[in-house]
Structure formats: structure tokens, C-alpha cells
């Protein structure tokens, strides 16, 4: 039996980004004793990097906005593959979640009449993003961090202990979920990054809020934490992942210098008037308006420019098409030889706004380019290109409670959950997603725990021993002659995923990726790390690597199976979007025995959209996405 530090809680939240913190606040307010576990220091989570804003149809900038318009935009952005119930809840509840942040102390930018200001963004019909300059994610994280502190202050007043009912375990990494023998969550196994010591958390409910998977790709806007931990933990615990083939490449990442390649350039640059140009100085986005969006976007520069000041009488600029469309367009321009010197395209705001206005509205972007690339964005255009930014796929959950399908007591919210964004997420819909579903996951977990009463699942000692042995394996050396360095295996994985399962995919290449993943897994098994367990980044990477490999396998296998192009999945050999594929989800599960220690892929039918939601769309639009049989009952159907 392994002697380890132990703690018992009602609810365990893994991840301290927006979703995790909002979940923790809700669970605590519903009377739960809550622990938040995070890989970094408290307040450093990836959410701080969100720039543009948080989408909510408050109607402050345009009174025509409402949840129905937001719902429609979200479904269109996701090419109707979205879980419609999640999209509905999200659109309905986002305004309340934003307003609630003000009661925690958040300070958003204001309109002239003192309300929360809202900005334009890709795919959103009206200015909808609550924002603070271009550092909205930082505001969200800090606001909720400070709300957690305020709940701890309340506990301190009542009990004399700040951490009596809500504690943050920072720089602590969960390596395995623990279950009882009835397939119920019983806790989690983790190590302290600082000391390398192990710790067991006993809790009947676990909320995964671990974010995304971008560190499996070479060019990414994601931080080191994005190693797909929650995705992999859910899989290994018997949960299921959906939509893993859909990976969002943000159209505008920095492309130069090489060391900053991939760092995000906010969509807010385009929302505030910036335009994309090729090496000939042409605004090329007018050539890339896809069939399904024809009529919704301006087809000439004059109308597009009028739209900024008169949106009611002009159509929006195609620079603000959904991200998948813009990323593909940039890719095509570069391929056609019309790219910028460092292999991107130009994003020009300097010629369109005054230097003062650029510095006021986009201070981080100004700073970032000045400091890292020696480029003054108020005087010259930026060079930008696609960067791996977000995974639409994730844990399959019940839309109302965020309970994971297949494992009792497991919940997931935020990027680690799948379904909400369909095949492509709109900018601004992530921060609102975190708030809406973070809160719902906290409530769902609290309800589940209350329903259990005193009959709590127990951690088995055998599982603790197994988890412990698995975590120290990289120190033990390998029987084989060839020993692998974790950094090298990680580097090779990133290069391979970028080259073979990137923004444009082909059958032969993706099949090659699946084969290479088998090789990489074999190499990862031979990884040996130097030194000891105290704050050892080589060891940390060796553990994270297992998760990245598992999740990459999901992405590659699902990408090979889906023979169409939709949102964040573009198959050069199957360029069309197929209505029959819209009805299908690809579901990944983990089969350690039968399928050679790998990912099992299955097809699942979509739940048909509720009639009243269907009626929010014109028949003519639905025809572009649905099979005739699915819309036969639509009131707008012409006989």
C-alpha cells in the first residue's frame, strides 16, 4: 500500500481557468466543500490569454440583439453540428453570467450610457462581445479568482480558517481518476509539482475543466498546460469524447520571428476595423465568401466599409467570416504565392485607425508586436497566419448538468467538454461557454453529491498503487537499449500533427499519422527522465506526453473517418459538406484490452433539433445543411 497525503472533499474541480473557477464558485455556494486543483499558480490559467471578449446578447450596442439571434449565429458558426440544447442554454444564460461578474467586481469597458460596451466579432450579427480592451480573459480570471478569495474570507469570518470549505491546490497535477467498483467516481490521484510527492483526493464528484489540447501541435496559441489532460482522464475513466476531428486554427497568429510563431493576434483587430490583405495589397476575403454565407456578407469594399458605421443598412465585411473560413482563405493565398515575406498575409489596421485609437483599443497587441517583433502596428501592417487555437471536441456530456456520459460523478465544462460549438467555435463564445457551463457543472455536481447521501464511493488501495507506479515509471529506465528523451518525442509529435493532421487534411497523410502515433507511443514507453522528483519539468512532460498521444490519436482517427469538410475539419479529398454527415457524431472511447491499447471509434446519431428552435431559421437556410427528411415538418417548407 502506498502511503500518501490524503484529502476528502465533496467536489473536486480539476483546472482553475474560467470554467473551473465558475464551477467551484457555484458548488461552494450550493454548500459543497470544494477543492480546485491546477497545474500552474492560481490565476495563471490559459483563460488569461483570451483577448477579444465574452459573447452575450445584452443588446447594449444594438437593441435588436437577443438570445435567438445569438443562438442562430452559434449554430451557423458550427455548421449546425452543435449540440442545439447547449447552444440554446448558452445563448439564453450568457447575459446573466456577464452581469453577475460585475457584482464580483469586474470592470468592463462602457457604452456612453454607462452600460457594458460590446464589440463586433466574426460570425456575430451584432456587436456582442463584452470586453476590456484586448485583455478580457485576464479580467475574467482575476474577477473569479477574487470571488473565490471573497468566499474564503467569508469562511474565515465564520470558522477562522480561510480554506475550511474551498481550497486551491496550485501546481498540482492529476494523473488518474479513481473509481469504485460500481463505475462511480471516487477521487483523483495527483502529484505536487514542487515536491513530486503524491496526493490522493477522495471525492464523489469530479469536474473536469482542463481546457484544450493545442500542445500536440507545433504552431499553437496555447500554453504548455494544454496537453489534453481532462480529455485523456475522461477516456481512461470510461468517458467518451465527441467531435475530436474538429480543431480550430485561428486565422491570425504571429508568424515572425520564429520563436513567437503561433502567438495569438486577437480577432478584435478585425472587429475594430483591421482588414486582411495579400502581397498585392488586395483585400482577398471578398473572394472567399462560401455559398452558405452568400447574402450575409458584403461583396465589395465600399459596402464593407460603410458597415462599420451603418450596420443596419449594410452587410458586414467578410474579414469577419467565422474563423474556419478565414483560416482556409489565408492558407489558400499563401499557397498561391500571394503571401507575406514570412509566410503569412498582412493584417492592416495602421491605415484604417489613428495611432491613439489603436493603442487605446488594442494595447496588448501594440505591446506584443513592439516587444516581440519590432513592429509598430500603428504604422505598418502585421504579418499573420493560422495557429492551432481551440478544440471543439471533448467529453460527451448531458447538456443541462454537464454530467459525463458513461461515468457517474464525472462532469466536464469549458473547452474540455464537447458539443456546444459543433464543428467550429465563434470567437467570444468561449468565455461565455466557460461561465454558463462552469456554473451548470458546479450545480450538476452539487445535486449529484446531495443525491448520494452518506453512501459515498470509496477509493481502492489497489488503484492508488497502480496510479503511483504509473507516475514514477519514467524514472525507472527501460529494458530496451534505446532510451528516449521526452522533449524529443514531444517535438516529433508536434511536428507530425502539424504536418499530417493540420488545417488541410488528406486521407493518405492522416492514415500515415495514425501509423506514426503507434510508433510514437512505443517511443514514449521508453522515455527516461533524469534527476529527482522535485520540480522536474522533464518528468512532468513525460507524464503529460501520455495524454497528448491519446488525444492526438482521437483527432487523427476521427479525421480519417469523416469524409467531408465542415468547420474545423477540412479534407482536401472530400471538399464538400455533406448533410448526411451532419447527422453523425464520431465518438471516441478507450479500449485498453480489445483494441490493442487504443482508441475505439463509433458513429452516433445526432438528437433531432427541437421544433421551436428549428422554426427560428428560414427553410431555405436549413436546406443547405440538413437532409430533406429532417426538415420535412418545417413550417416554411414550400410544397
Amino acid at each position: 500500500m502506498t502511503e500518501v497525503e490524503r484529502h476528502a472533499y465533496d467536489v473536486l474541480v480539476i483546472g482553475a481557468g474560467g470554467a473551473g473557477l465558475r464551477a467551484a464558485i457555484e458548488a461552494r455556494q450550493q454548500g459543497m466543500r470544494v477543492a480546485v486543483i491546477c497545474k500552474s499558480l492560481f490565476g495563471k490559467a490559459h483563460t488569461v490569454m483570451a483577448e477579444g471578449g465574452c459573447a452575450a446578447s445584452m443588446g447594449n450596442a444594438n437593441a435588436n440583439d437577443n438570445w435567438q439571434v445569438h443562438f442562430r449565429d452559434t449554430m451557423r458558426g458550427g455548421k449546425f453540428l452543435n449540440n442545439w440544447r447547449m447552444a440554446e442554454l448558452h445563448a439564453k444564460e450568457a447575459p446573466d453570467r456577464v452581469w453577475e461578474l460585475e457584482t464580483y467586481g469586474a470592470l468592463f469597458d462602457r457604452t456612453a450610457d454607462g452600460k457594458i460596451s460590446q464589440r463586433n466579432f466574426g460570425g456575430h450579427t451584432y456587436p456582442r462581445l463584452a470586453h476590456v480592451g484586448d485583455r478580457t480573459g485576464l479580467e475574467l480570471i482575476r474577477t473569479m479568482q477574487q470571488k473565490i478569495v471573497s468566499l474564503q474570507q467569508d469562511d474565515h469570518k465564520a470558522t477562522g480558517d480561510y480554506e475550511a470549505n474551498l481550497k486551491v491546490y496550485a501546481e498540482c497535477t492529476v494523473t488518474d481518476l479513481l473509481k469504485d467498483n460500481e463505475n462511480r467516481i471516487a477521487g483523483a490521484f495527483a502529484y505536487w509539482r514542487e515536491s513530486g510527492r503524491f496526493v490522493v483526493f477522495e471525492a464523489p464528484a469530479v469536474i473536469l475543466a482542463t481546457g484544450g489540447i493545442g500542445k500536440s501541435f507545433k504552431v499553437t496559441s496555447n500554453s504548455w498546460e494544454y496537453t489534453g489532460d481532462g480529455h485523456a482522464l475522461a477516456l481512461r475513466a470510461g468517458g467518451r469524447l465527441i467531435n475530436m476531428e474538429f480543431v480550430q486554427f485561428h486565422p491570425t497568429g504571429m508568424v515572425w520571428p520564429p520563436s513567437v510563431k503561433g502567438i495569438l493576434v486577437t480577432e478584435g483587430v478585425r472587429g475594430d476595423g483591421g482588414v486582411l490583405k495579400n502581397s498585392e495589397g488586395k483585400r482577398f476575403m471578398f473572394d472567399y465568401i462560401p455559398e452558405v454565407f452568400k447574402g450575409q456578407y458584403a461583396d465589395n469594399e465600399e459596402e464593407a466599409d460603410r458597415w462599420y458605421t451603418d450596420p443596419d443598412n449594410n452587410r458586414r465585411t467578410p474579414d469577419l467570416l467565422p474563423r474556419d473560413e478565414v483560416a482556409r482563405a489565408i492558407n489558400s493565398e499563401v499557397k498561391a504565392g500571394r503571401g507575406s515575406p514570412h509566410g503569412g498575409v498582412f493584417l492592416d489596421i495602421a491605415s484604417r485607425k489613428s495611432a491613439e485609437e489603436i493603442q487605446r483599443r488594442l494595447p496588448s497587441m501594440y505591446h506584443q508586436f513592439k516587444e516581440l517583433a519590432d513592429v509598430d502596428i500603428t504604422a505598418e501592417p502585421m504579418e499573420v497566419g493560422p495557429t492551432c487555437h481551440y478544440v471543439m471536441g471533448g467529453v460527451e456530456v448531458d447538456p443541462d448538468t454537464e454530467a459525463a456520459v458513461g461515468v457517474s460523478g464525472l462532469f466536464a465544462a469549458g473547452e474540455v467538454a464537447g458539443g456546444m460549438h459543433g464543428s467550429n467555435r465563434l470567437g467570444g463564445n468561449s468565455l461565455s461557454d466557460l461561465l454558463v457551463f462552469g456554473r451548470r457543472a458546479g450545480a450538476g455536481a452539487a445535486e449529484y453529491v446531495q443525491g448520494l447521501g452518506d453512501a459515498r464511493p470509496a477509493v481502492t488501495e489497489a488503484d492508488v498503487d497502480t496510479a503511483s507506479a504509473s507516475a514514477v515509471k519514467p524514472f525507472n529506465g527501460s529494458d530496451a537499449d534505446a532510451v528516449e528523451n521526452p522533449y524529443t518525442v514531444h517535438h516529433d509529435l508536434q511536428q507530425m500533427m502539424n504536418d499530417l493532421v493540420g488545417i488541410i487534411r488528406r486521407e493518405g497523410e492522416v492514415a500515415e499519422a495514425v501509423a506514426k502515433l503507434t510508433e510514437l507511443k512505443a517511443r514514449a514507453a521508453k522515455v527516461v527522465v533524469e534527476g529527482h522528483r522535485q520540480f522536474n519539468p522533464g518528468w512532468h512532460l513525460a507524464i503529460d506526453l501520455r495524454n497528448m498521444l491519446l488525444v492526438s490519436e482521437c483527432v487523427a482517427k476521427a479525421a480519417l473517418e469523416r469524409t467531408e469538410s465542415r468547420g474545423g475539419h477540412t479534407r482536401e479529398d472530400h471538399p464538400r459538406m455533406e448533410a448526411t454527415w451532419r447527422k453523425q457524431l464520431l465518438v471516441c472511447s478507450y479500449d485498453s484490452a480489445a483494441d490493442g491499447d487504443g482508441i475505439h471509434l463509433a458513429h452516433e446519431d445526432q438528437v433531432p433539433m427541437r421544433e421551436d428552435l428549428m422554426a427560428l431559421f428560414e427553410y431555405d437556410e436549413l436546406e443547405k445543411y440538413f437532409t430533406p427528411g429532417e426538415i420535412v415538418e418545417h413550417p416554411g417548407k414550400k410544397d
Partner: protein
Amino acid sequence: MAYLAHFRVWRGDSDKGDLVDYAIEVNEGEVVLDVIHRLQATDAPDLAVRWNCKAGKCGSCSAEINGRPRLMCMTRMSTFTETEIVTVTPMRTFPVIRDLVTDVSYNYEKAREIPAFAPPEGVAPGEYRMQQVDVERSQEFRKCIECFLCNNTCHVLRDHEENKKSFAGPRFLMRIAELEMHPLDAADRVPAAQDEHGLGFCNITKCCTEVCPEGIHITDNALIPMKERVADRKYDPLTMLFRRKK
């Protein structure tokens, strides 16, 4: 463009440690953190360093580079000559855990001692109304990425371990100023700033402002105005009179 740089990195733990020399490749456009990562991937796989975003947004990779408190991800190698020795050491004010990683828990303890935002009574969510010009003062302070370089450099803390108990440091005095200047915060923040959080220790040398990677005017816009509010309260003869009467 690539060249071999001479790095000198502090390696060790809470007991002992020393500067270790490395010759390591540097490429065009790189920052100090890139070079530290290359060291990890080659010569020193167990070199401990904190980092997250590598874009100057999270405030994790604070260290001292040639003695100057800086973010490693925002320090370009082009600011050094190719022959210059680049010395990287952990923040000095906080106890070392290992290599470049320090124990910054002091900051989280101080954060907990500042009473949270006090929502205005009778204003429902969605009914908050504030003017841009009024929120901008606090917004400047909310740009803080909590890299703790200001607390690291503040001489009140840097050479005086004993002051940590009674001094919140520039970061959290600024947090008090942020709440005090919040247009709708219902609490009075002024007396506690002086009496409980040590505002009086600050003698406005502006070291904190100089090292702030976000360019926040900590001294001019947060600390001095707070000192003025304390002075108005404490030394205004009229309020002194009222206080005595109570």
C-alpha cells in the same frame, strides 16, 4: 544568424546553489525563455522554471536577468551583445524552491487579507452603470498580470524579511487603490491601507513602477493618491475635530 551565447543560470534549491555556465545556441528573434527551454531540451532536462503563455500575459516567468527583474518571455536576446554573459537568477525576495522557481505564497496570503469588492446595496445585476472615464482609473490597475516583480523589487520587502508581515507590497496596495477608485465599491478602504497593510512603509522611490512589465503607473496613480487620501483623512483639522467628538 544563430550564435552560441554564454548563459549563467542559478541552479540549486533552498539549501544551496550556484551559478552554472552554459554555452547555448541562440536564433534570430528569440527571447531569454526560448534559450532556457533549449537548455531544458538539451543540457539540463531537469532545470526548473515557471512559465505558461510565453506572450507576456500570465506573469509566470519572472526572474532576474543580469540583475534586473524581468519576464523571461519579454526579454529579447537582441538586447544583449553576442559576447555578453547573460545571467539568470531567481527572484531574490522570495524563498527559492528550485533553480529559477521561487515560493511566492507570500503574495497569495496578502491577497487574502484585502477585503473583497463590496457590491453596492440595492443595485441588481445588469443595472450597474458606470462611465468609461470613471472605470479607467481602476482598469489600469486591473491590467496587473501578478508577476510579482514589483513586490520582488520593492526595497521594503527585498532586504527586510521582517516587513513581510505588516506590508502588503505595491501589488496589493494597488489592489486597495483599485477598489477604492472603483465607482461602485461600497466599502471604505482608506484607514486599513495605512493601519493594516503598511502604506506608510512606501517612500515612493518608484522602483515598482520601473519594473512593471505592463507599464502600470503604480506609484503615481495608485500609491501616491492613496497616501493623499490617508493624509486628507488623518491630518485634516476638520475631520480630526469630528472624530474627537464621537
